[in-house]
């Protein structure tokens, strides 16, 4: 318990509202959001709920590249996107966008990883070290000389992550990274991301629809809709809330089964149940119909 409380708060957002220039409505409406060091936060919600906009604010893209009316208290590792430039914030907060293709600029993977450090004006020796480190962390050494378009979607994803990691951020934000991955790759990716977090001591903010794949790794789930945060709490609390209030997100089937039978459930035990246990429960539901 005390380790939880002694963790530093590195993102603090209060009363945040944002409207794109020339837009009619606010995309974000009085949001309160905090992240402590080392957390694994999942943000979910329907398209258009403001998730990607929040990611843009956390990295400074808003308002620097996307002007608009931004109000509220914002502190991201001490930075405020209204005061600081993107390239300042980018050394602390990394963002991996949904489509890896548009984030890989160079003609080989290793040159791409070097691109960020080159922009930072680092010494050649330091850049080389970071490139080697990034390649080994995501296990892409064999692909280092390949061109981005020669890689499969999953490997492009890894290359984009490696390139962002070379900036050595403390916070890593990923925007729907499993969108274009097949099921097996998505499952592997979830484990990969968790391992990465542990090895590098990262704080992760993950925007995702496939909650069930990441459920067991999460510290918190944030559900957004129409620019507001509906709930922000521990995963099991959030899931119960969403089931009760019929929120349109991808609730893991396990929870739906348990909930339907009226059993209260403790999120920690979710993955201790075997599929066969669920099978029994599910059959009970069928027979009750």
């Amino acid at each position, binding site marked *: 318990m005390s380790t939880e409380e002694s963790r530093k708060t590195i993102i603090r957002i209060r009363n945040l509202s944002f409207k794109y220039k020339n837009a009619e409505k606010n995309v974000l409406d009085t949001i309160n959001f905090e992240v402590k060091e080392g957390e694994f936060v999942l943000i979910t919600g329907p398209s258009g709920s403001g998730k990607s906009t929040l990611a843009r604010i956390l990295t400074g893209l808003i308002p620097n590249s996307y002007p608009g009316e931004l109000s509220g208290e914002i502190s991201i590792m001490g930075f405020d996107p209204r005061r600081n430039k993107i390239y300042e914030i980018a050394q602390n907060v990394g963002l991996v966008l949904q489509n890896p293709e548009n984030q890989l600029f160079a003609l080989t993977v290793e040159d791409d990883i070097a691109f960020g450090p080159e922009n930072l004006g680092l010494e050649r020796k330091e850049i080389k070290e970071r490139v080697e480190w990034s390649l080994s962390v995501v296990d892409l050494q064999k692909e280092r000389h390949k061109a981005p378009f020669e890689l499969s979607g*999953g490997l492009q994803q890894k290359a984009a992550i490696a390139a962002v990691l070379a900036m050595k951020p403390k916070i890593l934000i990923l925007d729907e990274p499993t969108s274009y991955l097949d099921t*097996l790759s998505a499952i592997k990716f979830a484990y990969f991301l968790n391992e990465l977090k542990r090895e590098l001591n990262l704080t992760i903010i993950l925007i995702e629809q496939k909650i069930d794949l990441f459920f067991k790794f999460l510290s918190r789930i944030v559900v957004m809709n129409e620019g507001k945060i509906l709930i922000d709490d521990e995963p099991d609390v959030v899931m119960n809330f969403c089931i009760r209030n019929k929120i*349109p997100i991808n609730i893991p089937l396990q929870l739906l089964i348990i909930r339907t039978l009226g059993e209260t459930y403790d999120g920690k035990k979710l993955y201790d149940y075997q599929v066969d246990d*669920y099978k029994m429960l599910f059959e009970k539901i069928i027979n009750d119909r």
Partner: protein
Amino acid sequence: MAKISIEDVSFSYEQDKKNNFVLKDVSYSILPGDSVLLLGPNGSGKTTLLKLIMGLLKPTKGKIRIDDVDTSKASVFEISKKVSMIFQNPEKQFFAETVREELSFGLKNRGLREEEIKKKVEEVAKKFGLFEYLDKSPFDLSGGEKRRLSIASIIILDPEVLIVDEPTAGLDFQYRNLMISIIRGFLETRNKSLVVATHDIDFGLRIANKAAVINEGKLVWSGDVVSLLREEEIFSKGILAHTFTSSLISRVISQSNVDFQKVVKVLEELTEGLM
């Protein structure tokens, strides 16, 4: 309605000596009324197969016949009279000034009369909830409206066979359900067929009755959806991966003999308890 037969088809993009075959000796039939799931890992050749059926690519070896017409001897225009295809991220095809124009495009190319086109456009627009946007620019629509428009502009062609490539990739919960209802709406007409390439088995189970699995260019399994779920090897070899949902269904129908349709129905009630 159309029957498609794929006979010993192999395909290579390079027309020279390298002979790097993306598809090898694939044979399969799609009969009127079939709703086929084309499954397999990314890069296995699914999209290539769909393009071959559509006639956009011609087989390097073997033949594809659409009702006895050899696709390598027919133009895409010919084939598009019976077969239509919805690509991944279909919003990328927008070019028109208005939604109306976008919807009319396919029909205009077919030479239909103005009044006929107007009638069909308004009918389809109503069905897809786009009627009020007919004079808006397609680029001004929201994400969901764009997706509906792009699908409507293909459905308006009223194909006998509809081919869809990864319809749920990147879609959120609500749009997945929208996709399911659109596809079910299409299949309501008797003897229309559907081929869907997807790696989203949970989605596929709700709309298909047959399945074909492609791995590394070869057709490694085909049969009906229920049999696929009873299949152990394909899943244990890592060609396909089970989600919790699919593994649950698999166990229930294998070990307890519960009717598959009932299982799907209960599953939907469970998840739609949310809608």
